[in-house]
């Protein structure tokens, strides 16, 4: 325990006593050991678990654990006291799948194409189940702080990649070293039904075929290894194979397989594999589960629903134009009908959590593809669509703790649990609520209260932007030039891949959102690309999506020469 105590190096240290929440913390050097690991949050509204509330209670945190929760808990003399007079305290949230704190391996450029695309090296096609996400963890990655600032304290994280990228770990969103972060190593074998362009397995059907073949070969080699172990002089020594060995604990039903399972067909294909091979299954980042609720329920798979929701449709200018028209054309009517169905469809995605709850499926949430800045708003949309606040809180705390087998240590504010806490100034799901502090493993983090951006500050989109895009074929750079004339926008984009400049289409700037599309021409073949970028004064950030494929990140800054 003492060793544990001194190993800790919290990023922020506090003065011995705090008198008001939100007070600026004095910063000390990182290397200075904390004065104490005992905290008392006094006189706060404590939501111990969904439906369990203590008004004006005190939580005592000591050496990483919650040691007392009650209305009249005695505050130890060495405790750092947080006067929680107006604070709400929740158990730290748990994310079921993301890459939080995981470093993305650098894409090697100009990799030689394998001579036989049907038989490529395993690591070229994501066949690396022996990898361990712990080798890629970085507690200082900004994703850790970003997710923690929303109240998340634990994530089930996986390596980047496709097919079989490696083993997952359940990590704390704090700490100073990768090992500091790890709560459970080897939590699951991670997989995605996604192949590698141009190499085997390329298509989903080949990924599934290869999955079956690997699993069966692993079963065979595992049996043979035990046969060999029983009499080492009678048999040939079994070959080492790290890929197959990674499946052994799965075959033993000791390690679940964690699948990214977003689309409704993807989920069913994963069930096909599960039914063929009979492994324990976690499906995560589920986005379209509601049409197959019964199939999901009967599968017995542990389920994490995506916190990534489709954007709500904004009222478009075309609508007002239409209302001006006296008679609607058939085209207008068709468009209206399509818009109506699209809106209904977005509603289905938003009410998915409610439907799962109604069907009696215990689920958590996952942050994998959700933009951090959208998560709070999306939780409110989920609540507006019918999941109660308590049920939503359960999906963030008690349910995932149970699904991950950690309900003895996580999920509620009770004696003996790991001190993962979220402190907010208003009830969490209130639109105006702010997370003030987060405890992770008994370490206090203040969420930075940045000076709020004034939303009404006029965003200037026109001008020249130097951008770089991380495409699957490598980094592409160039200039985006946006011009404005009488309220309508136009522009051009250049890129380093084909050294061409292309006219932009459908350029629009809505508040700080810049969207446009363009046709990318490469040696005679053309591809439509949609761009969606957020402007922040002199920088832009967002994505570009080539038709029919996955989007890639884009960043840029205003050209200093441009006005």
């Amino acid at each position, binding site marked *: 325990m003492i060793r544990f105590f001194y190993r800790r190096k919290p990023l922020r240290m506090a003065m011995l006593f705090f008198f008001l929440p939100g007070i600026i913390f004095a910063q000390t050097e990182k290397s200075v050991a904390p004065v104490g690991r005992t905290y008392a949050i006094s006189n706060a509204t404590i939501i111990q678990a969904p439906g369990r509330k203590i008004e004006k209670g005190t939580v005592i945190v000591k050496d990483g654990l919650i040691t007392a929760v009650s209305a009249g808990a005695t505050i130890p003399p060495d405790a750092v006291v947080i006067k929680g007079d107006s604070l709400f305290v929740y158990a730290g949230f748990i994310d079921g799948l993301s890459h939080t704190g995981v470093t993305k391996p650098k894409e090697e450029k100009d990799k030689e194409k394998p001579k036989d695309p049907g038989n490529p090296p395993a690591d070229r096609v994501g066949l690396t189940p022996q990898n361990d996400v712990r080798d890629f963890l970085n507690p200082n990655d900004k994703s850790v702080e970003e997710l923690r600032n929303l109240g998340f304290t634990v994530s089930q994280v996986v390596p980047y990649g496709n097919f079989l990228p490696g083993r997952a770990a359940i990590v704390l969103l704090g700490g100073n070293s990768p090992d500091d972060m790890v709560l459970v190593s080897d939590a699951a074998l991670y997989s995605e039904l996604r192949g590698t362009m141009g190499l085997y397995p390329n298509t989903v*059907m080949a990924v599934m075929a290869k999955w079956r073949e690997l699993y069966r070969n692993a079963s065979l080699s595992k049996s043979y290894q035990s046969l060999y172990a029983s*009499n080492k002089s009678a*048999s040939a020594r079994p070959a080492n194979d790290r890929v197959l060995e990674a499946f052994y604990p799965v075959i033993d039903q000791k390690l679940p397989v964690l699948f990214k399972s977003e689309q409704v067909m993807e989920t*069913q*294909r994963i069930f096909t594999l599960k039914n063929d091979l009979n492994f324990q299954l976690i499906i995560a980042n589920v986005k379209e589960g509601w049409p197959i609720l019964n199939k999901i329920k009967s599968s017995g798979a542990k389920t994490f629903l995506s916190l990534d929701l489709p954007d709500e449709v904004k009222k478009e200018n075309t609508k007002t134009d239409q209302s001006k028209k006296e008679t609607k054309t058939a085209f207008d009517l068709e468009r209206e009908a399509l818009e109506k169905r699209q809106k209904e469809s977005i509603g289905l995605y938003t009410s998915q959590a409610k439907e799962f709850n109604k069907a009696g499926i215990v689920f958590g949430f996952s942050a994998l593809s959700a933009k951090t800045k959208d998560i709070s708003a999306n939780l409110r949309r989920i609540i507006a669509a019918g999941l109660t606040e308590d049920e939503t809180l359960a999906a963030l705390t008690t349910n995932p703790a149970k699904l991950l087998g950690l309900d003895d240590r996580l999920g509620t504010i009770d004696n003996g649990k790991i001190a993962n806490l979220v402190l907010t100034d208003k009830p969490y799901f209130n639109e105006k609520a702010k997370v003030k502090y987060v405890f992770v493993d008994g370490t206090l983090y203040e969420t930075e209260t940045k000076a709020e951006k004034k939303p009404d500050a006029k965003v200037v989109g026109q001008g020249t932007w130097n951008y770089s895009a991380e495409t699957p074929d490598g980094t592409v750079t160039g200039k985006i030039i946006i011009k404005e004339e009488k309220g309508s926008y136009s522009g051009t984009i250049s890129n380093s891949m084909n050294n061409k400049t292309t006219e932009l289409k459908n350029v629009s700037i809505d508040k700080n959102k810049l969207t446009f599309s363009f046709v990318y021409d490469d040696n005679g*073949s053309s591809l*439509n690309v949609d761009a969606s970028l957020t402007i922040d004064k002199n920088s832009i950030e967002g994505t570009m999506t080539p038709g029919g494929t996955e989007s890639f990140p884009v960043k840029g800054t205003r050209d200093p020469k441009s006005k």
Partner: protein
Amino acid sequence: MKKILSIYIASCCALTGVAQDRGNLLIKNGTVLTVTQGTLTETDVLVKDGKIAQIAKNISAPQGTKIIDAKGLFVMPGIIDPHSHIAIDGINEMTSPVTAEVAEGDVINPLQMSIYRALAGGVTAVHAMHGSANAIGGQCETLKLRYGTFDNDAMKMEGAPRTIKFALGENPTRVHGGGSQIVPRTRMGVEFVIRKSFSDAQKYMNDWDAYNKNKLTKGFHGQPPVYNLRMETLAEILKGNIIIHCHSYRADEIFMLMKVCKDFGIKRLVFQHANEGFKVAPEIASFGAMASVFSDWWAYKFEVYYSTAYNAAILTRNGVITSVNSDDAEMMRHLYHEAGKTQKYGGLSDEEALSLITINPAKQLGIDSRTGSLEKGKDADIAIFKNHPLSIYGVPQYTIVDGIVRFDREHDPADMRLLVDPKQNLDDIIPSEKGIDRCMDGTEFLFGLSSEMNTAEKETQLDKK
């Protein structure tokens, strides 16, 4: 395994409620084109639990049975398209010339709009095929067009035999020889690849047989052979458990594959396209192979120039079980016209022409005991036409799968999508599924093409090169 699978399917269906529905129905007073048992006028067809219970005059149905008044209409077996690429996500695993292990059954997509459009053309079942990029492509899946379900398994025609796609000629040589610079580069190479695959599979089977036999001996400590799903699949072909459907055009290569199959004792063989099938029709017939052809589509590449619209008729007259297929989501919607062309070119009878899109494709898929004609006990897969289906004025009115009306021209809503993309750009979604040849999907980048292009654009680009 099959049993487990069917229990699994049954349990899913019980839960979802939509999948695997079976209907009750009485079709009154139609002209019933049974295809196998003549044409019956003013006749009723009674459907119970998705099966044809009775075909006779003046049938009375239990109260509450849905009745379709078919007076003046033509009632025919649901059309079966033996060569299609709809309702699947992924057509070519083009990374290797042999990919027998991949299966379209794994990537069924029951949400595709092309399924409903096919129903509107009287189609009730399709053979969803792997593409023709590989000498030995993937396993195909026979699907019933039960549009309306989200359940991918519910689309499968339960109990249909396994089938696999082979391909000869320009496509596999272009993709692997031309694209990846590996064997096969020539037609000889294709034959070599197929022969070697079968030989390897024989050795694989022998290795496993030996291992399984030795395993029973006391004190056996041997190592099992490496499990290989590709070889497992090829072995099933050798055992006669998988029907080969081979993309082929030229007479010489059709003849070649029959020789190969004979050498390896393979009997179940269907030639797809077979544009030069008419040149070797007696040979195909004597082998016992079958042919599935286009009515009059050719000249889209060099190996398809020597073609004739009489192909289906010549094959039929030579005793080859012949079908007409679409290979195309658009042509699929008027296969009855395609069949009708064989009356202009070759003078086939009504029954022979209708057989090309009903009982004959059913035979080629090994499902003729279940479907392909209107007979008591068969699945109630039925298309009802206004005007004779072989007439240019024929228009499908109802399409029925397992006794459930899946298309009704009178009640045909404008928007039949089951799942609407919440992020769709409305400007882009109007005609989204072009009637294009998807046979080579996934190989575009080899030729500097974009997967976004339609066939015409691809061809223009290829011509430039």
